[in-house]
């Protein structure tokens, strides 16, 4: 069997898997009756529709001919991983180290995801954005965000 559309094949598979997963989860909650629907009623209904739609997408991806194969294409691992890492680092450090350290850290890490990395430009960008976010979020909007590292307070 030949896959005619790679993108639709994987989408269909994803939808079926999600539908099945939510359906299994729904069995843990009370179904109730149609007259008195329980907590599991609507999720089960939705997951059934999800799985059916996914199966149709999957079926069409195998049967409707396409010349190009509709390939998924290469995955941009570098920006994907670097951006994710920079978000996670932000989440891990903000409450411990404060904005003064976390913001430049985020800017430097995320800048690595671009095509070119010029240290001077990145540092200037980091300085401007640190000052800018202090001015906008802490001074201007008065949001409670830790500014200085925990151990300095």
């Amino acid at each position, binding site marked *: 069997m030949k896959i005619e559309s790679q*993108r*639709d094949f*994987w*989408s269909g598979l*994803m*939808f079926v898997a*999600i539908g099945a997963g*939510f359906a299994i*989860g729904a069995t843990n*909650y*009370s179904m109730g009756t*149609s*007259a*008195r*629907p329980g*907590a*599991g009623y*609507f*999720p089960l209904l*939705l997951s059934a*529709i*999800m799985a059916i*739609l*996914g199966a149709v*997408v999957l079926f*069409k991806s195998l049967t409707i001919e396409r010349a190009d194969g509709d390939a*998924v294409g290469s*995955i*941009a691992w570098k*920006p*994907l991983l670097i*951006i*994710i890492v*920079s*978000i*996670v680092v*932000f*989440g*891990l450090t*903000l*409450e411990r180290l404060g904005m003064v350290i976390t*913001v430049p850290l*985020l*800017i430097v890490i*995320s*800048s690595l*995801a*671009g*095509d070119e990395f010029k240290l001077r*430009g*990145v540092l200037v*960008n980091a300085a401007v*954005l640190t000052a800018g*976010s202090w001015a906008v*979020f802490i001074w201007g*909007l*008065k*949001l*409670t*965000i830790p500014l200085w590292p925990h151990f300095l307070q």
Partner: protein
Amino acid sequence: MDLLNNLALGFGVAFTWINLLYAFFGCVLGTLIGVLPGIGPVATIAMLLPSIYALDATPALIMLAGIYYGAQYGGSTTAILINVPGESSSVVTAIDGYQMARQGRAGAALAAAGLGSFFAGCVGTIIIAAFAPPLTELAFKFGPAEYFSLMVLGLIGAVVLASGSLLKAISMIILGLLLAQINTDVISGTARYSFDIPELTDGIGFVTIAMGVFGFGEIIANLGQPAENREVFTKDVKGLWPTKQDFLEAWPAVLRGTGIGSILGVLPGGGALLASFASYTMEKKLARNPRIPFGRGAIQGVAGPESANNAGAQTSFIPMLTLGIPPNAVMALMVGAMTIKGIQPGPQVMTSNPQLFWGLISSMWIGNLMLVILNLPLIGIWIKLLTVPYRFLFPAITLFCCIGVYTLNNSTFDVFMTAIFAVIGYLFYKLSCEAAPLLLGFILGPMMEENLRRALLLSRGDWSTFVTRPLSAGLLVAAVLMIVVVTLPSIKSKREVAFSED
């Protein structure tokens, strides 16, 4: 007259200093993100949602609305000057607008876009003011069964008119509805799909999803593409005022664009994007013997779609304001913003918060006036912004998204959730699954479940209640018709043509 009284009340609210200030702020920010490719109104509004905790509801919504229609103005600037549509709704503007710029008529193109948008904005504001009250009255006749059917219609409408695979778009709606099931069941108090994580029992924040999928997902997708060489026509922008000939050719296009845009904006799934495509197609058919053929710098091809996208952006507020049902992703965020401010979106907003309702509508007219001033005489400032390289922008966008998500609940858990949704967003992008329907489904999920369960409770478990009640049946029939019509072979091929790049 009621209309005049209402508008008077609205202008009274909108002309206070604080509201003028926030309208202005929203317009500036909207123009800014419109000009900058790679960040759209959805991500920006999502980013700003946490900050509205500190504001009153009226200035907050006025500002968010300004961002949406401001982005329509700004998006056309980049489309004309560098052939990169700042917003998806400006894609067709780029076709003729960029050609005009290459011929040294950038000024005329910008003026046609700006003045056309202003005219359309004025008409759109009046249409909202005139049609909102009767629609609201209709909405009060709705029971849970009608509401459920209306939401089905709204969701189906949102995808049949959009681009891409219909089947996958409907699947994405269902996925959105399913994600909304991760919460605590309102009726029984059971925590669903929480895996014993306390943060998940309150449900996933929709800002988390919007930011992950639209903000970060887009950054990753942009960075994955090779950098493009851009040609910027900055020196050629002089002679802003169009010639008499330009005026004569542009005004019928503006009128037609405003008309079609206003109608398409109200439809579920409508809004700025669809309106601009429809208007361009119509101009191509209707404009009699254009002096310059379409695709080579016809001013009609700029004036029409630009008026249409602004009219559509305005009238898409109608279903959101009167029924509480968002027709597109931006309106879904506006519904979220209302909920944050403790206002239950729906027909009662007009009577319970008349200041907010009419103030918001009037502010749109003022905002449009500000935008003409911001965009035409001050065009030079925005052009300078185009020279900021993306390598400075994307870390800044990443930062603002992170701070925005964190401040929503002052919780790092939300930051980690957003990272997960960034990966999911990139996956959707790679699999050509559109994310906007998912967000609509996610927003409507809890309302849909509640209305479904109430309708079934009232009918004692009889599903036929949805088809035996005439209003509900009519809405469902309309939804089915929509699907049938777009899957007809002749329409299907036209739909594909309309959305393919010209």
